[in-house]
């Protein structure tokens, strides 16, 4: 694509770095931005910069957070001895929307997938083990996608956790089989957390 302005070209190149955004869509976004007034675009740009610079990850559960410890971990009304293990932020949001869970989370940051170069060392696995020991956690709930990668990760974690004498449960499946957690509707997801079952592979 040839651009009449190097400013446009730069912006198109940057925006097309988004997943699923090609040069054509990026150009459409650029044309939209050019039609807006300057304060609006400045606000948009600043919020993106602030997001990336200021965001923190909770030092306990690794969920995104405005502080060193997130609102969920810091909430004294929630049970810190029950930990729900999830893949990422989207799962935390999905489960929180059900209002059925009163424990804490542990965000792994992905699922084990050697082909994509993701092993246990790339995920927050060791910190989960340490956390279980440190906070005397009683129950670990595995809420991972019903995919091959989700199963592998659950298998692996159960191997690591079982020797610690913690009870392990899994959200009841068969609801979101083959699907990702975030697509399960709130009622079924809520029910599957309330009716969680002891984990066995």
């Amino acid at each position, binding site marked *: 694509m040839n651009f009449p302005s190097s400013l446009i070209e730069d912006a198109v190149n940057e925006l097309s770095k988004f997943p699923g955004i090609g040069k054509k869509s990026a150009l459409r976004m650029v044309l939209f931005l050019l039609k807006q007034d300057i304060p609006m675009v400045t606000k948009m740009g600043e919020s993106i910069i602030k997001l990336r610079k200021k965001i923190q990850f909770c030092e306990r559960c690794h969920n995104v957070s405005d502080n060193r410890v997130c609102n969920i971990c810091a909430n004294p009304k929630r049970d810190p001895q029950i930990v729900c293990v999830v893949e990422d932020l989207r799962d935390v949001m999905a489960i929180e929307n059900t209002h059925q869970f009163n424990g804490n989370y542990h965000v792994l940051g992905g699922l*084990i997938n*050697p*082909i994509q170069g993701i*092993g*246990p060392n790339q995920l927050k696995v060791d910190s989960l083990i340490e956390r279980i020991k440190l906070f005397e956690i009683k129950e670990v709930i595995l809420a991972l996608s019903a995919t091959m990668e989700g199963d592998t990760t659950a298998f692996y974690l159960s*191997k690591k956790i079982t020797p610690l004498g913690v009870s392990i449960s899994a959200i009841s499946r068969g609801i979101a089989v083959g699907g990702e957690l975030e697509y399960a509707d709130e009622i079924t997801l809520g029910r599957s957390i309330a009716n969680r079952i002891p984990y066995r*592979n």
Partner: protein
Amino acid sequence: MHLESLYIQQFKNYESLQIQFAQGLNCFTGRNGAGKTNILDAIHYLSFTKSYFNSVDQFQAFLGGHYFVVESVCAQGNIQESIRIVFQKGIGKTLLVNGNDVPKFSAHIGAIPLVMIAPGDIALIQETAEERRKFIDQVISQFDKVYLNTLINYNKVLDQRNKLLKDFKLQGGFNRALLQTYNEQLVQTGNYIFTKRAAFIEKILPVFLSHYQWISGPDERVGISYESDLAKTPFDRLLDQTESADLDLMRTTRGVHRDDLIFTLAHNPMKKFGSQGQQKSFLIALKLAQFDFLSEVKGKKPLLLLDDIFEKLDQVRLSRLFAMMGEGKFGQVFLTDTQQERVKAMCASNAIEAKFFEIENGQLLR
């Protein structure tokens, strides 16, 4: 079950083509290269969402174009179902059943059971074990959804495990717990596949033998046996035994991905000791056994595709096949040949009604 019609657009050598089928035998005749087999392949697409010959969708488009469409109406009793497959370059393939998008193609496999007899079948005898595994998997997948999903999972686990073995060797950092995680998943899916394959071979074998003898006469002793690493040693122990070899070679050296079917003639390999005629009889008997098996488990007769059989079969085997057709053994049949006259003669002598289509250069002549 039968296909009422076929509509193809920009598919192989057809710009566009619309056909109304007969419920029984449909014959496509014309010169070599006219495009008769391409019609059979379009039907294959409707059943398996892919080509019989070439698995790359892109190469199926007319004159290297950027899309193709294969569409049909399938009737079963009073129920009609439309099936539409669209391929677009850069976008991929979509499958629509009654206008609804079917994102998982595996969910459609088995909806239109199909058996194809084609010259390429000889690869089953001549080529590597992969061809024979593809054959069993394709038959079982047409009636067992769990099998197909388990097979897909096994292959995923296998790929991940192989990558892990490579990482261990090239990057260090051996992790036994993680390897065992993959072992357990491989064992779980592998055992299931092994059991299903073994049961299938056991079930199909007597049917196959009776077909072979009917086609070839009672003397010849043919056999099919299923060979698997899992037959002698339990899979979990096998994986423990081969762990160091696997780590060294950076791949999984044992498992159902190495299974094979052994075709024999008087206990000798069919590939080396069978004559051309015996090999052809063997393949037809195998396909007919597949037809019977699918008919039984699906409760409906599969579509039967007969590609170029007049060229490939001798008179005796051909007459046997047509005699079966005359007795009403098959449902809807699609056949190709270069000479309409000899097909007509064969149909007449077996009292078979057929609909004829003359094909020339990707066009239907009246």
